[in-house]
């Protein structure tokens, strides 16, 4: 039976709903399987991880996580048996492979670098972007259209095209391999996106709110802070997610400009492969942990993200 209502041109029939549902579920599976596979690999033992045919049923092991957070050295069985009993699980699995833990790995500091650089640059880009967007939205800026186009044009070329000049500049300025350098770089890349997105959101907030506040005795800055910002939170959150995702995932510049103290997680994770054979569980464990912050942030702000994607089309 087909129904036509006044509200929709084609009313969804139970069958079409079921077909749509199936397509969505299939698509979700396709997208989620690689993630599940990475997580599964991270809790496999190294032999299981490279077994062929691939093991779907296996005994989980935390070895990948042990290897991710530690560096190990190979020792003779005699030396190992002379040691006192293993203090914890990681000690135990390491000794089974004729190795002992030599110390913590660089993963944790690299992960912290990623957090500092990604969140730091996101904050800067959103902060500068909000102020610039407010200015463009509310004031008569001379050559406003040209300036906005200029800001947008910085995104028209893939950032990596300017990698070599930036590399040389950073070397001269002493910004290579520094968190400050990476924050500045990611802020510069993200700020144009932030200005454009936020301008759209701020344009939607009627001027009357600030005018009311200014008549009520508040300065422009105070009315911006107390009246405009609270209403722009949706837009700010959506913009922040986009900036964060870019800065968090960025690989090319990080690989080129950071190698030591300021190295972020993306260029670090592949280097794990080299340490003591092809340690896929450790790589998968690093990737899994790397996914968590962005996942949490995105799930927390999913409504704003949706609105950010459809911005302009949906009105409050």
């Amino acid at each position, binding site marked *: 039976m087909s129904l036509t209502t006044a509200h929709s041109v084609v009313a969804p029939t139970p069958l079409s709903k079921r077909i749509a549902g199936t397509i969505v579920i299939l698509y979700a599976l396709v997208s989620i399987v690689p993630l599940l596979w990475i997580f599964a690999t991270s809790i496999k033992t190294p032999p299981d991880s490279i077994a062929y045919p691939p093991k779907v049923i296996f005994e989980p092991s935390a070895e990948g996580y042990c290897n991710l957070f530690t560096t190990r050295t190979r020792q003779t069985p005699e030396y190992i048996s002379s040691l006192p009993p293993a203090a914890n699980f990681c000690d135990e699995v390491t000794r089974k492979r004729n190795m002992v833990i030599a110390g913590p790995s660089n993963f944790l500091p690299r992960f912290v670098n990623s957090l500092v650089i990604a969140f730091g640059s996101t904050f800067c880009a959103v902060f500068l972007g909000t102020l610039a967007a407010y200015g463009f939205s509310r004031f008569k800026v001379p050559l406003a259209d040209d300036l906005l186009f200029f800001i947008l044009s910085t995104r028209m070329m893939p950032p990596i095209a300017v990698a070599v000049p930036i590399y040389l500049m950073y070397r001269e300025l002493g910004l290579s391999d520094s968190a400050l350098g990476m924050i500045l770089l990611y802020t510069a890349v993200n700020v144009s996106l932030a200005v454009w997105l936020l301008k759209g959101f701020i344009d939607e907030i*009627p001027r009357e709110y600030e*005018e009311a506040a200014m008549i009520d005795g508040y300065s422009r800055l105070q009315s911006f802070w107390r009246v405009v910002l609270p209403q722009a939170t949706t837009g700010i959150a959506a913009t922040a997610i986009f900036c964060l995702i870019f800065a968090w995932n960025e690989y090319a510049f990080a690989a080129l400009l950071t190698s030591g103290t300021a190295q972020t997680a993306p260029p670090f994770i592949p280097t794990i492969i080299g340490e003591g054979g092809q340690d896929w569980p450790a790589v998968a464990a690093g990737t899994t942990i790397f996914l968590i912050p962005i996942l949490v942030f995105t799930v927390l702000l999913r409504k704003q993200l949706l609105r950010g994607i459809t911005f302009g089309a949906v009105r409050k």
Partner: protein
Amino acid sequence: MAEIRVENLRKEFSGFTAVQNSSFIVADGEFFVMLGPSGCGKTTTLRMIAGLELPTSGRILLDGEDVTMKRARERDIAFVFQLFALYPHMNVRKNIGFPLLTQGVPAAEIRARVDEVARLLRIDHILDRSVSGLAGGDRQRVALGRAIVRRPKCFLMDEPLGTLDSEFRDLMVHELRELHNRIGATTVYVTHDQLEAMSMADKIAVMNHGVIEQFGTPTEIYQRPATMYVADFMGSPPMNFLKFHAGLAQGDASVTIRDAQIVLPTIREDRAPAELALGVRPEHIRLDDSSKLRGQILGAEYLGTTQIVVVETAAGVVKARIPAAASVHAGEQVGLALNGPYLSLFETATGRAIATDLSKGAAHG
């Protein structure tokens, strides 16, 4: 409380003049209405008084103090916006108390004053609600509350009833006027609705194309319009114009339109022969077969207590408001008698009223 004095105020936006040389004085405690169609410059004038726009030239004095170039927040005025501009992230109480917060008023006093204002406006039961769920009338009252709570020098209102439905509007017109009577603050009110203006104002300025056509009390504006534009804008149906060609001499007390001699207030100026228009309100026309001013009835609109009869005469179509009981039929030939003391005369070319005993005193801005 304050007197507002506007002197030769002018505002040009790139390429067009929104307000041309407006001058008027709003006395302390007066309810002043700026009336006109959209785009006539009334809102721009209001925004200049508020300090939201800076004038191109001219002066604005608030209680004798020149505030023309002062910031909005330094003027001590309150503004009620057409769409109320209630802060959506605050509840009703915070919205009303917001202006006091910046003045450093202690929290306990803010609370007391918000409560007092809420009682005055009968919104004390919704103080803790979010503003987004409020009905139009309540939003209106909250916006008023936010204006009143500060006890400012004057209130500026930009079509505050424009978004309410008509039933509610009548109620709010009454409430606003009553509120004004109680607190007696100088108020400048902008509207395009002549009924709102007539029922609330102490003084009205009728604006058109950036020019104040007439400034006066509602009675003056209605009975002694200074221009044909004002005469046509006010009243429903508006004033009728009977076109004729004649010269005038000071002291004349009648004009002749197509053989019909019509008595009117004594004319106070001489005029060379020109195209003129006799202005008559629908309620000042009677059907009278003895009159030489004749026409044919085109139709009638029954309004309950009265009816509007449309009559085509040689000098133009007129609408007369006559008792509902009178029986009229389309096609009938009737005579029209005009109520002499209430007639106005205009020069068609300029639209200006010609000075008569009636129009004397009707100022032109």
